[in-house]
């Protein structure tokens, strides 16, 4: 199956990891508001995409994967680091969705209700991020490059 749901990640998470995530999320949100107040919303807005949470989640992913492998008797240090890299690759793809989210809010919020715009932008984030991930999973960028190279080779031959 392409995507699956598993509760093993939840079972592995410790209580203090939830506290770290909650605190980081709260600090970044409050910090962005402080920066917006001090330097204006043009500057504060940058921090709505600040990746502190990604840094925390990648570190936790590394730790969980290492523990999982060590329980099976495998030396999991490098496997954990690989998993953190995969997590960051996912975030890079999700950032296309985040750009789309921000564009929709910027364009539509001034003239429409926030109760419609914000949920719609969240839906757009999912609708952009999901297909970008799927295209990457199916190796679409490589296939496209190959097709373009073939067509240009055929043209030069013809």
């Amino acid at each position, binding site marked *: 199956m392409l995507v699956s*749901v*598993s509760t093993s*990640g939840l079972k592995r*998470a410790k209580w203090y990891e*939830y506290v770290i995530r*909650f605190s980081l*999320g*709260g*600090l970044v*949100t*409050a910090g*962005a*508001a*402080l920066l917006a107040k001090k330097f204006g*919303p043009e*500057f*504060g*807005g*940058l*921090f*709505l*995409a*600040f*990746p502190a*949470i*990604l*840094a925390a*989640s*990648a570190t936790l992913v590394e730790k969980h994967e290492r523990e999982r492998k060590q329980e099976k008797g495998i030396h999991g240090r490098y496997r954990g*680091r*690989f998993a*953190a*890299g*995969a*997590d*960051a*690759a*996912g*975030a*890079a*793809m*999700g*950032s296309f*969705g*985040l*750009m789309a*989210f*921000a*564009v929709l*809010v*910027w364009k539509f*919020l*001034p003239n429409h209700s*926030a109760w419609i715009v*914000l949920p719609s932008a*969240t839906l757009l984030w999912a609708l952009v*991020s*999901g297909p970008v*991930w799927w295209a990457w*999973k199916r190796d679409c960028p490589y296939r496209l490059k190959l097709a373009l190279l073939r067509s240009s080779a055929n043209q030069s031959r013809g």
Partner: protein
Amino acid sequence: MKELIVRFLIGGFAVSMFSTISDLLKPKTFAGLFGAAPSVALASLGLTVLMQGTATAATEARSMILGAVALFIYASVMSRVMLRFRPPALPVFLSGLLLWLAVAVGLWYVVLGV
């Protein structure tokens, strides 16, 4: 101060919610999409709309586009470094935040001409 506490609580809740969804999903690259979820943005923009109006929130969202471009660069570099050299994650991801900051502020300076 009261406003900051409210922002802290709502931001913390939004991030925890998206992180929990991410914990439930496999494979890792798909779960990683949630590392770029609009959790902080939803909490911040919702509260800005309530407290300062839609115009201020829209201005924040415009700058957020540049922050998201910087996030793409940050996450791509982190992923490449981790997959290729396999260093410990914490120091790499933390020092990489300076890269995000430099790209975001650089883009802000160039694009918005402030």
